[in-house]
């Protein structure tokens, strides 16, 4: 039963969905403060390569080096986000072009690939990787075994992050301020909230989440470094924030749905199932579904009603309010 296609897809959907979830949570924090960051793919890749590098070069116990790797990945993602934050918040550059620039700078043909080559990271499996937490006997439980108990620490930590981000935004004063900054920066400024500081902090936090998302690829899903390993996951994460109407809980649902779609192609291959041009449709499915869901969401109502922060993508200039 645990080998049926559906259970395996759901179980690996959770695994493949975890980087999407981290990426989407980070982007959600940045967007709620009014900063659109299209550089998620690039930040993820730099996090992925730096996390992998830490594990390869740090000689320490497994748990310690993995923890250090996640920390380094978060810092690397944050450093990338800092460039975007400086350009769009301080210099008021176009958020769209700056985000694209970040993806080109850090992405598959840029810094992440440079670091991977320069540090000779390709062709070796990770020395340590995240494995399932619970004993094998628990993982053999029907259905919930592989789906819920067959996962690694990063998956369980992501659940805590969903709850944490949701509570932060809806139940704390800081979270209320963030929403104010994203919706009406001029009013927030008048209330004495430091718009610039809030936007910087949440853009950086978004970068840290994206870095961890990248490390999920190189330390858990496929524990190795390949240039461009994320394969567009950063972009799907950005789309997820829109599908989820800027709500953390819905990000989780969406991430696992798209994770399962990504798991479909390797599973069909492993089971030798062919339905028409399988290589074509199974590989394209996550991307095509992203487009379709996006169309469905955008066609089904006004943007404001769906929860997009009102000042998303707009620079705040005190003199011009």
């Amino acid at each position: 039963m645990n080998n049926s296609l559906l259970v395996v897809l759901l179980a690996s959907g959770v695994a493949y969905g975890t980087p999407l979830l981290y990426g989407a949570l980070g982007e959600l924090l940045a967007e709620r403060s009014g900063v659109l960051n299209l550089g998620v793919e690039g930040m993820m890749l730099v996090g992925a390569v730096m996390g992998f590098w830490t594990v390869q070069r740090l000689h320490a116990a497994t748990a310690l080096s993995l923890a250090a790797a996640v920390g380094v990945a978060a810092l690397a993602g944050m450093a990338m986000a800092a460039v975007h934050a400086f350009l769009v918040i301080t210099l008021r550059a176009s958020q769209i072009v700056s985000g694209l620039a970040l993806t080109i700078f850090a992405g598959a043909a840029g810094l992440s690939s440079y670091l991977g080559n320069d540090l000779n990271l390709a062709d070796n499996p990770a020395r340590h990787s995240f494995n399932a937490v619970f004993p094998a006997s628990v993982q053999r439980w029907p259905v919930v075994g592989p789906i819920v108990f067959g996962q690694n620490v990063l998956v369980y930590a992501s659940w805590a992050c969903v709850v944490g981000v949701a509570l932060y935004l809806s139940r704390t004063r800081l979270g209320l301020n963030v929403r104010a900054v994203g919706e009406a920066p001029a009013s927030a400024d008048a209330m004495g909230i430091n718009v610039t500081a809030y936007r910087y902090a949440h853009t950086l936090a978004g970068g840290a989440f994206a870095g961890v998302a990248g490390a999920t690829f190189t330390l858990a899903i496929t524990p190795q470094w390949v240039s461009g390993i994320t394969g567009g996951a950063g972009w799907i994460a950005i789309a997820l924030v829109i599908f989820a109407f800027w709500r953390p809980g819905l990000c989780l649902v969406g991430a696992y749905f798209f994770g399962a779609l990504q798991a479909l192609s390797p599973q069909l291959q492993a089971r030798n199932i062919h339905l028409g041009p399988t290589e074509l449709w199974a590989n394209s499915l996550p991307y095509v579904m992203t487009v379709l869901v996006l169309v469905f969401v955008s066609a089904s109502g006004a943007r404001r009603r769906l929860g997009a922060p009102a000042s998303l993508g707009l620079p705040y200039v005190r003199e011009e309010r």
Partner: protein
Amino acid sequence: MRIERRLRQPRWLVVAVPAGSLVFALFVSGLVLLATGHNALSSYRQIVDAAFLNSGAIGQTLTQATPLAFTGLAAAAAFRMRLFNIGAEGQLFMGAITADATALYLGGHGWPTALVIFAMVVAGCAGGAAWALIPGALRAFFKTNEIITSLMLNYVAAYVLTYLVFNTESYWRQTKGFNASVFPTSKEIPAVAFWPSWHIFPLGSGIAVLAALVLWFLFTRTRFGFEAQVLGDSPRAARYAGIRTRRKILAVMALSGSVAGLGGASQVGDFSHLLDADPNGLQKQYYGYTGIVVAALARYNPLAVVVVAFLIGALQNAGNTLQGADFPSGLVGVMQGIILFSALGGELLVRNRVRIGRTMPATEAA
């Protein structure tokens, strides 16, 4: 320090800022090289040699610059209207697929060279335009964010390209011969469909210059271009002025996609003479994404795109030639990213005046 909006943008700044960005980017990239234990000066000398001075270097630079001119023009055409088509990558693949099929079919049926080339150009435009019209139509009719949809379609286009040559016995795939049984490849187009070159200039580079002139005329001298500009600067003003938004979005996306598709046709006709589906070939050049760098550095001016494409093409060529231990691949992408960041930051200087210290005491006192 305070930042004030300029009422008038001085002309010299429009040239000085991109040029300054380039210099600044070279400086910062040098720091990256130093930080990772390389000799920046010798790396730069190698870049100049490989891009311009070595024998045949200029020709190879043109080989890289030609597709970049097309994708740069494609990005410039759409970005001018704040329509962020970042699908030039996929549109180029689609143009290559349609142009390749045209060359195989018409070339095989004994059509004369001029007609085959003309048909390839038309087919490339049509393929790119059709692929671009998917995000275009979704944006026009459902207000779907074109950034994400056009980008997602890049991945789909890459899978289509791979599928046609690797996973199926399609019209494009070479099925005869020993090599084809060892490693899947596509058919070579008949010699009659090869695009001619003039000295070191491939036909595609001439078409790119022509396309740049047409786009420049269209955007600066016609009503079409004016309306696109208004729509980009202020959608509300455009609506009040009675500009038909949907039609304009569709037209500009089709225009942008067809230029990118033309780049695909030029890839087949000028350079590869087959459908390059190798995962380490055309798909690793990232012409579509680099086109965005080209367009932004040219400040979306079609004529400037040609010049910038040549410079970035030189960099790309050097990166391809030098790839190895003391010139890790990815360095070129890093440099392009820094160039783009500097150009973006420099935009602030074009649009605003930065005053240092206390200014305008009279008004502040009042």
